[in-house]
């Protein structure tokens, strides 16, 4: 009995910030208060009419799309090599490839800033894309590896025995079978990039605002309920797209 009471309280604590943000985006007051007072859709309208927010959304979308494209190719190839291949140093390579998931972003951000400053990529869009591809590729590798582990390599052998080239086997046999994993990996990569803040803060040039940077800078000064509204939109995107994927991601981790 006491156990379930503790579980309920901790569960409430875990949900608190999300519930608060969603609730305050409907408040009729001029600043976010909890519990909200009154009810209005006004702040959502303000976000969707704000040139700054819309520009930030467009920039984040372009950044996420470009880095996801690179991460999907790199990650799918890497997963094929790691799951189907057999080569020296395989365990070390696998650990290295997944390391960006838990690597301190603050350290990578500073390292990239200095390096990019040296090679002339600092404050540029390609530089940010390259960095985001590093951060998102591990998620593609995980998802595609799981798909690869699910089907029998004998199917590929059969195709080769029937005379198909390696290329033909990949595009006609392997790729259709792992497509769910590739798609899931790409979507996951897109959300991770779209949400990324720390590395972007180091690398964004003047006038290059991602949505998280935009929210972060507005929080450092004063915040209006429109910040809650845009945050609510972000939460909704995660809930619709992210939840099914995260379940899958964790299943992969535990096997």
């Amino acid at each position: 009995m006491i156990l379930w009471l503790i579980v309920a309280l901790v569960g409430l604590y875990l949900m608190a910030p999300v519930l608060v943000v969603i609730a305050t985006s409907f408040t009729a007051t001029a600043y976010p208060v909890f519990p909200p007072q009154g009810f209005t859709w006004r702040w959502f309208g303000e976000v969707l009419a704000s040139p700054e927010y819309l520009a930030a959304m467009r920039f984040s979308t372009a950044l996420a799309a470009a880095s996801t494209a690179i991460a999907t190719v790199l990650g799918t190839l890497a997963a094929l090599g790691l799951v189907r291949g057999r080569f020296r140093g395989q365990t070390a390579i696998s650990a290295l490839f997944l390391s960006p998931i838990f690597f301190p972003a603050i350290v990578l951000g500073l390292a990239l800033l200095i390096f990019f400053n040296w090679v002339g990529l600092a404050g540029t869009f390609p530089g940010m894309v390259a960095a985001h591809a590093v951060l998102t590729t591990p998620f593609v590798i995980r998802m595609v590896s799981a798909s690869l582990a699910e089907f029998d390599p004998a199917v590929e052998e059969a195709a080769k025995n029937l005379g198909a080239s390696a290329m033909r086997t990949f595009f006609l046999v392997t790729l259709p079978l792992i497509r769910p994993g590739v798609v899931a990996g790409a979507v996951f990569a897109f959300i991770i990039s779209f949400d990324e803040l720390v590395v972007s803060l180091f690398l964004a040039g003047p006038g290059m605002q991602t949505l998280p940077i935009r929210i972060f800078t507005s929080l450092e000064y004063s915040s209006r309920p429109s910040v809650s509204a845009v945050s609510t939109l972000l939460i909704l995107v995660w809930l619709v797209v992210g939840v099914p994927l995260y379940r899958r991601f964790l299943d992969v981790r535990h096997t």
Partner: protein
Amino acid sequence: MRQKGAALVLPNFAWLALFMLGPLITLFVISFRTYEAGRGIQDAWTIAHYVAFVADPYHLGILLRTLRLGIEVTAWCLVLGFPMAYGLSRLRGTPRALLYFVVLLPLLTSAVVRTFGWMIVLSNNGFINRTLIDLGVIDSPIRFMYSMLGIVVALVQVLLPFMVLALDAALLNIDPRVYEAARNLGASRLRVFLQITLPLSLPGILSGSVLVFTLAISAFVTPSLIGGPRVPVMATLIYQQGMSLLNWPFGGAIAFVMLATVVVLFLIAMRLARQERGT
């Protein structure tokens, strides 16, 4: 041995070499360069930045505060995570899936959004302080914002999922027949917990703690928004050196002290895990 599949991992290896390993090596080298205000990074070699970080009381204070933050967050995650994981391990089907969703929710929200939520509730006239004052529990508001307490409250919330998942995996690995046997032999609930559940979930406690600790000491968004300049930690100091003061050698030195702490902890944890398996 044929190097089958090595060509497939080559592109990503090259990408990481160029955009992760290369930059990290550059940062490491830079952290041993001298720096002069106004003139920037010089060509001479020095270990002064590492020495300054531990010898200067202000910076040593930041290092110790960061480690304290890691310890406090890890301890709270263990205390709150154990009942959650235990509850999870006793549920099946839909209730388990629902609780699982609640546990994962913090990971499904971006760091800024989550921290913003805490800033609203934790402020001096925020929900928590107002409720406590209305109930007569306290007279003046508890200072959560711009204090260690607020950072801990917000960080435990986001790092708790990692601890619960690690503990849940460990608890699931315990054969339920062990519990039955202990109960049949007359062991009390408390004794079962202390002598069976706790020792058998030790690998989970260990891996969860190392993960939570390392994520806590390297967290940036929460300490930066909730702690602010009044409560600097290593991550916010690195950001300040890198972006405002442009003292990259010193920022690099702090970054590598942080990385060294993380790596050493992981090595210790791996060693302990191996011993655990060996017995």
